[in-house]
């Protein structure tokens, strides 16, 4: 990977990686640290990483760093919690988003990561398995369970849109 290719990776994927980590950790400072750590590791290993695989490399490293961070800190009370729906002109749509985000926060870390990798980044089961260290069947099962949990939360009488 050349320097230019590395900088292209920053331009293309930094926002996506940051969003993925932020929605998991729900803390902007920690998410920034994890993203910077992931890019630093990619820079150090740039001679070994192909340009085609830089995106999955980034997400793999960021995911592992995030898990390490969670295990190290074991936050119970979230401080400076990120609120995505603070602004919005369309009230109904924002409400739906808010409910979905609430439902997402109820999931476990693994399930949440799988849903985001699938929906935000469009990875298939095999690629998600490589990033998270699971096999394809596990990804499929965990992802389906997560979706059913989200669905159950959405159709609750108090959350009906």
């Amino acid at each position, binding site marked *: 990977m050349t320097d230019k290719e590395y900088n292209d990776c920053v331009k293309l994927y930094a*926002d996506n990686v940051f*969003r993925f980590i932020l*929605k998991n950790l729900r803390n902007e400072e920690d998410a920034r640290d994890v993203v*910077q750590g992931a890019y630093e590791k990619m*820079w150090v290993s740039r001679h070994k990483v192909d340009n085609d695989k830089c995106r999955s490399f980034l997400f793999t490293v960021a995911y592992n760093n995030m898990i390490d961070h969670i295990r190290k800190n074991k936050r119970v009370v979230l401080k400076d919690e990120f609120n995505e729906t603070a602004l919005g002109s369309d009230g109904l749509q924002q409400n739906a988003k808010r409910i979905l985000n609430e439902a997402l926060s109820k999931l476990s870390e693994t399930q949440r990561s799988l*849903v985001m990798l699938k929906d935000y980044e469009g990875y298939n089961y095999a690629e998600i398995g490589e990033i998270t260290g699971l096999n394809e069947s596990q990804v499929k099962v965990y992802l*389906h369970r997560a*979706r059913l949990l989200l*669905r159950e939360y959405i159709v609750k009488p108090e959350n009906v849109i």
Partner: protein
Amino acid sequence: MLINRNNYETFFLLYADDELCTEKRIAVESFVTLNEDLRGELNMILAAILPADDFSYTLKDSLYKNSFVNGSLQEKLLLKIDNELSVEELNELNNTIAANPSALKEEQLLASTKLDTANTVLCPQKELLYKTQNDTVVVFKIVRWAAAAILIGVGLFFGSSIFNKKALPVNAVVKVNPTIRPALSIQIADSLKDEQAIAVIKTDSGIPSKENIKKVQIVAVAKGIATNKKNNIEKYSAENTNIINQKELASNKEVLKTISPSENISIQNITQPQTASLNKQDKLQMALTNENIEPLENTYAQAISFTAAEKSNNKILYMDEEDVKRSKVGTVFKKLKRMIERTANIKTGNPIRIGGFQIGAD
């Protein structure tokens, strides 16, 4: 039990509820025929039976628990949401959904769990992640560099003795008392006869040495003492040596006779024929004690190279600087210097860059 006018009401109720077997129903009907006044009462009981109405519940479908969306269909719907179906499977599923309104509703619910891909989250300070060409990160492993420097130093230390042929013996440095030049006073024993004349040579410190004893012998030979007396000379030399050793330095001055300047024997002249048999240390002692030799330079610490040409004090690992430059050790030094300059960008006027920090180096 037979029906009679005391228990007919019970039989009539059972008859109306259709709870009697055929024989007993016939018995009740026979009883009513025989007792026509009780027929009106039976008809009143039969009139209280409610008719079955024709009634249907329209919302029956909402009562079902997705039994029609079975496990396999739900899994297919989830796979469709995840875009994991092939074209044929997708078409088949779409046909199924179209034919089944409940499946369509389920699909819509599952689709609402999909996250919005429109990214409104931006990475802050993204510009810090970019790398430019000048930001070369030099990974400075202190331990490895220190180990490498130590190994190189050790290698050069031992290599200098191998590469440089002009290397001097390790024990070549001789420390000379800078304040006192050893001076000899040749004293001839007064109590001894000429043939037994022995010159006891002492240094100012009062401590005789083997070399001095040897010089005594040389002097004796030079004075023409007979060879057969040599044994006596040696014996006397040895005895005197022991005596002298036992005395204290301050009082150890057995001055027997002081010779006049005319009798002063130039040791160097006498020993010239004997020079070949003397070792270097003896020559050194003689050179030290000969007043005709000019004082040595650098008497504090010096290598044994008392030639006048040895004027330079610049030594590198016991070698002269010029010799080092010309030797193989010098080429190793030059290569090492060039490598370090290239790696750490050390040039005259350029700062050293380590880990993104700059250390000014003049």
